[in-house]
């Protein structure tokens, strides 16, 4: 990839709309999401349950379950080729080979009746046309690469013989086995303990640096991505509400939701506060979103206009790369505190 620069777009999502048709109504899970992932970049997608962060990724992977779930509009260009318009056959070729995804629960995403080795070699044989022996050699290398001690000898083990952290390593090894251009990690550390969490994140960062694999980390925990992500997209109720380089999002957040997320968590490096500042109210009901801005009912900065029109996703004044969808300039509101500062 000598000609590749960090400006090369590995993934370009444009105006993605995904809905679920249920007996109770239509769930607008993803409602016009656009974002890019550049070569070698780690992108953090942050939001709470129902924000659409995972459904966006599943749409790109073409893993939205029919008949209820439908990708209704948009493009997802993987190296320029639209994932959403590909034939099923082509999707099977691309998935695993060029784009891979790992999930939150490493216990349920591994097949319990196949050996770890078989689960790793399957993709190698299918996508790279390796022989059994080549594949099994490579599988051993992969396990050692993700830090499973004596990996070669553990190929004949079954998933239940591995701990949670080890299973997540196996998932990462599977994800990376065909050296994909892009790895999507959906809450990769949520089910793991903090000390194991740190190991897994360090591993993903190392592999990102060594192999140049672009990574999307989907998480509800802002802290998880602070150390690793270059770029952050914050999602709320099916839309991106703020995006920018990680430093700016954490230091100078401009959307009230991002500000709320940052100030609602206690921080170990700061003096203890007498009281936490939660975001009031409840997560949005995607079947029944309010008119105007979806965050308005919970927003301390809301003005009349917020109830009438959804704000455009625009460049933040005075910056060249930070965007937000909010009518209010929070820096002009008295008593506003920018994030955790």
């Amino acid at each position, binding site marked *: 990839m000598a000609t590749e620069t960090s400006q090369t777009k590995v993934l370009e999502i444009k105006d993605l709309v995904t809905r679920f048709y249920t007996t109770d109504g239509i769930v607008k899970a993803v409602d016009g999401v656009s974002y890019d992932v550049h070569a070698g970049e780690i992108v953090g997608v942050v939001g*709470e349950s129902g924000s659409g962060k995972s459904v966006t990724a599943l749409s790109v992977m073409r893993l939205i379950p029919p008949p209820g779930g439908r990708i209704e509009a948009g493009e997802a260009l993987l190296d320029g080729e639209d994932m959403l318009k590909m034939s099923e056959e082509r999707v099977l070729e691309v998935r695993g080979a060029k784009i891979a995804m790992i999930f939150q629960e490493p216990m349920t995403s591994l097949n319990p009746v196949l050996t770890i080795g078989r689960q790793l070699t399957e993709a190698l044989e299918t996508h790279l046309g390796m022989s059994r022996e080549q594949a099994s050699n490579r599988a051993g290398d992969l396990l050692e690469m993700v830090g499973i001690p004596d990996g070669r000898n553990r190929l004949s083990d079954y998933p239940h013989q591995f701990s949670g952290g080890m299973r997540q390593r196996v998932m990462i090894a599977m994800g990376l086995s065909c050296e994909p251009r892009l790895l999507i990690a959906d809450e990769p550390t949520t089910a793991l*303990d903090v000390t194991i969490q740190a190991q897994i994140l360090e591993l993903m960062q190392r592999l990102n640096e060594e192999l140049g694999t672009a990574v999307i980390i989907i998480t509800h925990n802002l802290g998880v991505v602070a*150390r690793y992500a270059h770029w952050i997209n914050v999602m709320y109720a099916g839309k991106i509400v703020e995006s920018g380089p990680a430093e700016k999002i954490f230091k100078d957040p401009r959307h009230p939701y991002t500000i709320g997320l940052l100030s609602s968590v*206690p921080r*170990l490096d700061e003096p203890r506060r007498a009281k936490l500042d*939660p975001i009031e109210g409840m997560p949005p009901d995607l079947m029944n979103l309010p008119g105007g801005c979806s965050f308005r009912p919970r927003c301390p900065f809301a003005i009349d206009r917020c109830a009438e029109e959804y704000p455009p996703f625009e460049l933040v004044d005075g910056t060249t790369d930070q965007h937000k969808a909010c009518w209010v300039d929070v820096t002009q509101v008295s008593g506003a505190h920018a994030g955790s500062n």
Partner: protein
Amino acid sequence: MTQADSAVAAEAVNVDDDTLLQVNNLKMYFPVNSRGIIPRHVADVKAVDDISFFVRKGETLGVVGESGCGKTTVGRCIMQVYDITEGEVIFEGTDLAKLSPGRMRRMRRRLQMIFQDPYSSLNPRMTAGSIIGEPIRIHNMASGRGDYVDQVEELLRVVGLNPYMRDRYPHEFSGGQRQRIGIARALAVRPSLIICDEPVSALDVSIQAQVINLLEELQEQFDLTYIFIAHDLSVVRHISDRVAVMYLGKIVEIATREELYENPLHPYTRALMSAVPIPDPTVERQRERIVLTGDVPSPIRPPSGCRFHTRCPIAIDICNQEDPEFRDMGGDHWVACHRV
């Protein structure tokens, strides 16, 4: 901790009238049986292995540790959910482990529990009102139908829900609201001690702070004492007065909040703290992180000597031979480590 040590510790706190709960040399072993027609007892899962601590009236004791460290088992042992293997659980002067099931049932009015998963801990076929009212009925705490309804409605109000919501079923509530119902149910019998087992870890970040603030307000309002079991060290620091750190069935360090977070002595406590992510890229990139290698060993065959020695970055020879003594470092700070 040796017997002699804990005896000293127990004596020291028993003179203290402020002690609500005193746990002495608690052990909880779960037998592992062989498979086959005649199962044989082959080993024990030493979920909690000889721990002692106390909780003062009105304080919050945080218990932190990774999955499998025994923190949830400690909570359940206090509630006498299990028949404990050994040890004493002295609550308001009574050893709960020695109570008959009938007396324990009456005692449960004084100690209640809040669970992690607000989805599975509420009966889906009962309305919010009857879930909250059930303990009131069981313990005969209402003087009549009218009083019962008043109490239930008051409890809903106290936890920030609307009294008209009492006829709704759990699935009609969000995760945060369900946790409020769980809290109201625990409060219904006016307990003095509430064991909160990971009460916010299943909730969205923005909702966690709401529930934590509520727990703190209720503590003040009703003079509650909490044992707050969690794996999130930032949340535990926020809510606790003192904190116990557990590893593989043992308490490795216990201290006041300020002491523990400003002056952590045990290498495991230090590693845990350094692994907690901080939502600030600048701070994060400058921070030294102690990444522990390997996984937590099996509690069926815990390592010899200090149980942490297999993952400890500063272990020396003695660590795999001798179990470190639980030592008083002064100022309410206790630690079990050869290297301190």
